[in-house]
């Protein structure tokens, strides 16, 4: 079990009802944590179309998590 900070943007923030939260989790990877919080908050976007950053760096969904990491969950982008 690790303690991490999950941060949510745009539609994820609105669905979660908060911009960030502390999560105590057994998730080993960014992808596992996404599945966990997506189920809890009702995120609708497929993981493959979302992005994740750990401690400020965009990473793959298989990135390993460590205690005290900050994980940023980005819904599908729509700039321009």
């Amino acid at each position, binding site marked *: 079990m690790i303690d991490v900070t999950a941060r949510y*943007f*745009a*539609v994820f923030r*609105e669905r979660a009802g908060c911009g960030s939260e502390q999560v105590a989790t057994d998730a080993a990877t960014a992808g596992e944590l996404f599945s966990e919080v997506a189920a809890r908050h009702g995120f*609708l*976007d*497929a993981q493959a*179309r979302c*992005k994740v*950053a750990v401690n*400020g760096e*965009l990473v793959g969904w298989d990135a390993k998590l460590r205690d005290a990491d900050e994980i*940023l969950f*980005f*819904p*599908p*982008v*729509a*700039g*321009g």
Partner: protein
Amino acid sequence: MQFEISNETIDPARLKAALLAERAGACVCFEGWVRNHNDGEAVTALEYESHAPTAVKEGQAILAEALQRFEIVTADCVHRVGKLDIGDCAVWVGVSAEHRGAAFEACRYIIDETKQRVPIWKKEHYTSGVSGWVNCATPAVASGQSR
């Protein structure tokens, strides 16, 4: 070469001046403007949100790719965040090059990649009073349209 996330009005004339170079013979600029409609809905305004540190990092990577792939002199990009009205400039891309082919191709590359990769999100406000986050799962984009 600079990628910027800005919550102030974009000033294309000032930005373009930074592209000048004596060996540059061509300049191509793209501006994305807020349209009054999207996928059949009448739009009144929209808001852009970003995670600026990640956006700038990814945007700089896109500019570096463009400089490597195309024979250009330099390229810059600025994307607005905050609330915008119809006609406002949401994004500006400018490229200078010796020859026009590379300038056109690099400019197109930068805006295409920016829209696909940079963490920026758009919430549209409609005349119906409804508002919604636009993304690739919405009909507008699923049906192949792109602004």
